[in-house]
């Protein structure tokens, strides 16, 4: 029953939005004429898959596009799905969702292509990270942690997925303190690093804010006494609403801001009307209750970028990430 009420509420919101969209879609009468395919270069169930499918549902339930969207998971290494989109016919019916891994792969030397080989479509939301340590580690602040890493370089075990997001974040963190050096060890993603820290196999890692809340907080927002780990800081531009006591790294005087944006790309040469049309549908979808709830649940920042603003943001991100990813590749 509850689901039905929710759907009705969505449909009400949809009609308002649809009115706003009517003008936009009239201008692009030619696109889309057939179903649109979005490739997620990861298996089902992960964050990228959830973002893509939540948008798919929001666009469809609110009739933001006259044609259906099909989401296709291309598993294995993410470069396989990304390359498939890069080489696809640029007819406006193939899109890709991916994140900073694309830049990391290019700068680290493992990919022979990068974000400049695609047409950027939009950025929909971002999640930021938190350095975490064990509660019994004796570290209460990032300063404590990095002081130790500088005092005894290459002794603190930093759990990461080498070459990936958490590795780059770790490098940015250690670079913010002269002489500090972690010893990066291959552990994997969030769940694996939570396990390794809980089992005292590693000393430090980074998790997404949503993972930290899940692993360390009780439903009412208080601390979970059973949790073995604690966050030290937040890599976002502002404090996280669900972790209000956690300072940002910039507040602490460290020039580290690192968030992971969800990017939508199209093959190079895709007609502008398709890119603009799809970006407009995503923008309208981002305003729906479904997406807003999704963002709030996962403490995503509700960023939306398209067009020139997006291009500038991508170039700026590349400037920051390239040297870090190079450093990661040399480990």
């Amino acid at each position, binding site marked *: 029953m509850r689901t039905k009420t929710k759907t009705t509420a969505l449909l009400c919101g949809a009609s308002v939005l649809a009115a706003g969209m009517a003008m936009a879609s009239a201008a692009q009468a030619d696109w889309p004429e057939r179903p649109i395919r979005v490739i997620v270069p990861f298996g089902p169930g992960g964050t990228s*898959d959830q973002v893509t499918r939540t948008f798919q549902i929001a666009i469809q339930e609110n009739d933001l596009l006259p044609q259906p969207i099909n989401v296709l998971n291309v598993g294995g290494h993410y470069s396989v799905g990304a390359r498939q989109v890069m080489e696809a016919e640029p007819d406006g019916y193939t899109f890709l969702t991916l994140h900073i891994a694309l830049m990391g792969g290019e700068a680290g030397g493992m990919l022979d292509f990068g974000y400049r080989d695609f047409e950027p479509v939009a950025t929909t939301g971002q999640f930021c990270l938190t350095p975490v340590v064990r509660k019994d580690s004796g570290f209460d602040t990032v300063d404590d942690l990095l002081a130790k890493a500088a005092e005894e370089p290459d002794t603190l075990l930093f759990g990461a997925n080498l070459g990936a997001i958490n590795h780059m974040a770790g490098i940015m963190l250690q670079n913010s303190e002269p002489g500090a050096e972690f010893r990066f060890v291959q552990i994997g993603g969030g769940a694996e690093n939570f396990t390794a820290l809980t089992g005292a*196999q590693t000393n430090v890692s980074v998790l997404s804010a949503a993972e930290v809340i899940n692993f360390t907080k009780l439903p009412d927002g208080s601390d979970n006494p059973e949790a073995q780990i604690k966050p030290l800081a937040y890599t976002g531009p502002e404090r996280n609403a669900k972790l209000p006591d956690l300072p940002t790294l910039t507040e602490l005087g460290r020039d580290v801001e690192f968030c992971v944006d969800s990017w939508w790309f199209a093959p190079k040469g895709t007609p502008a009307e398709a890119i603009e049309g799809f970006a407009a549908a995503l923008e309208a979808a981002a305003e729906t209750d479904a997406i807003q709830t999704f963002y709030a649940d996962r403490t995503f920042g509700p960023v939306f970028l398209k067009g020139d603003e997006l291009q500038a943001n991508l170039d700026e991100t590349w400037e920051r990430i390239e040297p870090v990813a190079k450093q990661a590749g040399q480990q």
Partner: protein
Amino acid sequence: MEGVLTGLMGGLAIVFTPMGFFYVALGTILGISVGAIPGLSGAMLIALTLPLTYYMPATDAIVLLIGMYVGSITGGLITATLLRMPGTPSNVMTTFDGYPMARAGKPGRALGLGIAASFAGGIISWWFLLLLAKPLSIWATRFGPFEYFTLILMAMVLIASVSQGSLVKGLIAGLLGMLVSMPGIDPSSGMPRLTFDQHQMTSGLKLLPVLIGVFAVSQIISDVLDIGRKIERVESAKSGIMIKARDWWRYGGNMLRSGLIGTLVGILPGVGASIGSVIAYTTAKNVSKTPEQFGKGSEEGIVASETANNATVGGALIPLIAMGIPGSVIDAILIGALMIHSIQPGPTLFITNPDVVYAMIAACLIGNIIMLAVMTGSVNWVAKLAYIPRTYLLPIIIVCCVIGAFGLDNVMFDVWVMLVFGVIGFLLERARYPLGPFVIGFVLAPLMESKLRTGLMMTAGSITPIFTRPIAATFLVIAIVLLVWPLIGEWRRRRAEAAGVAG
């Protein structure tokens, strides 16, 4: 304890609503059917169903997926036994003894034992899931890279002991399997290796296409070559499908041991059902009074393999429910299904969504019971599969194999990998290189490598923790014993024989 009971009642109440029961039953039956088709795996079924569940209430979605999970692991036993094509990777060990038994005219008996063992495995791990989820998942976090490494080393020892015929050929096959697992992303640098400039190879040679190729496609090739020959019609003894009280008694110890192994292996993230059945099978062989029967139609072998692979299902759900850590590939998909419904699996799931937790636990129980009923009810009919002319059966199976290889990741390259490995598997068999060691090498080597290299990164190159960490040292000792025990047995047997001849 009372809380558990109340919670379980609540979970059963959800599962026994008409829709809830419908979804568990549907999931289990679909799981069995897909599991029984070589090439199609439970992971693929669940991945394909996942988008549909986004439109369903959370508890219905999750009980449907759990039913599929339980069903698919069991369904694979049917074709493993009757056609020597494991329905899913975790049934590989079952082919070693199930198929010889079926060939010897006892397909019903082999299936009956497999079904009973599957049920026993499911129920054993279910009790752990219900009662000990929390302490067990905390225990599992103590598993560092060196513990994993020695655990896998222990399973590797099986390469020597499942080799039929020439030990040297067995070892060569095992090493070939390890070699084939090497291309892809280097686990400690994140860079591609041995990809020969084929960008598809960045993902490496994936488990499913290689396994379908080596076991199903190669079998199809050899069946096609023999197609003119009349199939020997082994008379199937109708009796034997319902296993007797005596069998439960006889195999009770084996089931308990294999169920425990399967549960504990299932809890460890990243170590799947295949490895659970490998370890249980080796252990059963090593404690057996008739180890020489293993690989030739040993009932104990079927029981060990099928109990353990079903037990990993409940085992893998333990860290998922208690801590939000996926214990298997399928669990990772289940987490996605929950999160889409704004349910965050994690240490507080018991507090935030007790209804979902107990619905999962109840679905696991009911799924196993439905599985037992459906399999027992249909087995007489299913066993006839062995007598369908191959000319009808093989084209259908090869189509399913292609769909299965493509459907998992939606990449055509995987289909070519499968076909190439079909030819490789066929040639290996012809040259009498056993496939068992090949598969074990292929499955275990990547895990073993990545764990060892992670461990060495932690210690800056020192291997001593293998001897000093208690769990790791225990596994190491067991591995050595497993390796040496059969040799001692063989030596003593020969000495006794020699003495007999001399006397």
